[in-house]
């Protein structure tokens, strides 16, 4: 047990994934500075103060990471971001379905898109078991969502064939 704990403590830090947020923050700050370079001082002052501190902090974490690398305490990999690896296919499929949901909803409308998204996502996550339960749950939730968001709350959500049909009927 103690050996296990010791082994865990010695596991090198995943430098690659730990630097994603600082690098993104640095890139965004530099882009932000570029957009305000010729702006009036009122548009610059707060961002220059906060951005300068942020750049300093990023430099500090970069120095810390280089020291970890030189000491052998860290490795350039993305392990703690992608682990557990067995979930990578499910995670990527869910991300793909989410992107598809956003792009398809203007054409198919809320109800049909939500039904398709829920059933496909649940089927993927459950390894295509419990099909009947998943399909009925997805249908209930998407219809419930239609009644709550569109009928009751009058949300201006993109209408598709189902919403247009219901509008025509009632």
């Amino acid at each position: 047990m103690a050996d296990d704990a010791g082994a865990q403590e010695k596991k090198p830090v995943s430098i690659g994934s730990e630097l994603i947020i600082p690098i993104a923050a640095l890139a965004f700050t530099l882009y932000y500075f570029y957009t305000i370079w010729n702006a009036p001082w009122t548009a610059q002052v707060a961002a220059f103060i906060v951005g300068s501190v942020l750049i300093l902090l990023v430099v500090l974490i970069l120095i810390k990471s280089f020291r970890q690398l030189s000491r052998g305490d860290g490795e350039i990999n993305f392990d703690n971001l992608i682990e557990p690896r067995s979930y990578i296919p499910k995670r990527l499929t869910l991300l793909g379905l989410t992107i598809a949901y956003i792009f398809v909803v203007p054409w198919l409308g809320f109800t049909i898109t939500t039904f398709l998204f829920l059933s496909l996502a649940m089927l993927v996550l459950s390894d295509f078991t419990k099909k009947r339960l998943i399909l009925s749950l997805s249908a209930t939730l998407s219809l419930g969502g239609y009644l709550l968001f569109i009928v009751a709350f009058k949300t201006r959500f993109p209408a598709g064939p189902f919403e247009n049909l219901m509008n025509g009927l009632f």
Partner: protein
Amino acid sequence: MEYDLAFFTEMLGRTLALWWVLIPSIFLGLVVGAIPGFSAANTIIILLPLTLALEPEIGLTFMVGLYASSRMGAGIPAILVNIPGTAGAAATPLDGYPMTKQGRGQQALSMSFVASITGGLFTTIIALITLPWLSQVAFYLHSVEMIVIMFFGISLIATIAAKDTLKGLIAGFFGLMIGFIGTDVVYETPRGTFGFLELYDKVPLIPALVGLFAISEAFAVIEKQSIVTERGKAAMQEPGWAQTFEGVRIAASKWWHITWNSLIGLVIGVVPGAGAAIASFVAYQQSKTYSKTPELYGTGHVEGLIAPESANNGVTSGTLVPLLVIGIPGGATAAIMLVVLQFHGVTVGPDLFITSPELAFGPFTAMAVTYALMILTVLPLARYMSHITVVSTIYMAPIIISFTLVGSFVPRAYLFDMNLALVFGVIGYVARKTGYHVAAILIGVILGPLMETFFLRAMKMSQGDIMVLFSSSIGNTLWVFLVISLALPYIMNRRNGKREKAAAHDPYG
């Protein structure tokens, strides 16, 4: 007219007679508060045809009931699934969600309900009694004082960053930079918008909230069978009311904590443009600073849950004060109430207390009755609501993604906001997996633009003299309090460390 006990008793009776308006508004408020994007303000706008058709007193009672209950409803998903319903509940999951993971969801909900109800009820009564004096607060808190109050909220980033200071500060400052996206308040110069017109009016809060908390959480929980740990599941196997009563008992024992933090909410609520998010961050930060057990915050600590919940409910009565006394709405919901009153030909301001005292005091008695009714209607629900946490993540994750994406669309009806929520979801997921706190990013996104606005106003008024920040006595007093509250944890830590060292070396210890 004399405002004596008989007058207020009569007002209370009139409000109680409107129970048929308040009870549906409470349940509607709980639902809309719990779904990100469906705030009380949005719902009241949707239901404007109904509220405009009602008598002003009944319409106001309905809006107040919905407003108060939605504030409490926002804390429910924050505790159970780590998704705050509104920005005002963004500090609630810091300790509420760890409690749920430990199988104490039912207890956490009942504690949150008690803190919200008693905090809201107490501040409503205080607001009613101190109305003439409270209305003056807004006159004394100008841009300079608000900047210091913002610093109280922003210093929560440092508190959150306690475990890994560098990562916490990077997350917080990254959030602040994201918060600066949009046009500046003076010349309307677009900044950091990537050319998107939809970002000219700053980063919308709901997509940021949905992405950072809900989407990222949904992608993270699929690696587990359910939100609750195995030990937590075992703890939830004993059905019954015991957990609810235990939660009530624990919350009641922290009555001083509720009182203090709800008063913070009341004072911040009185300032137009402030609001529940600032109040809950300030309350959490203060609560941790003066706590005897600050090291327990973030691990499912009772005080860490009670502080933001009592503060954001203290705000509700506070926002009504400037609306009714000086005719300036303290927030979006109060602004809609103003529209409804004006539609009925009612002019708000000091005269209202003489011409229509039932309309001037009515919202406060309605709020008090709403909170009292919520004890009976909401508290029993804690037992059943908490069971949502044992639902398998196979079902939970897709439901969270689809319904919160809808929520991010609702406030502005832009499809762009759903894409934005996904971008924030990716940022939130990477942040979670690599130890950068998403709450620190969100604090920056919420408070960044507010602080910039107050800062620029102060600089404009002083013609660019930075010393304006130290020009008011109230502001200077607040600066002193800020320095004390930032220094105190370090002083206490050093003192405790020295004591422990001394005790270890004491042969008779």
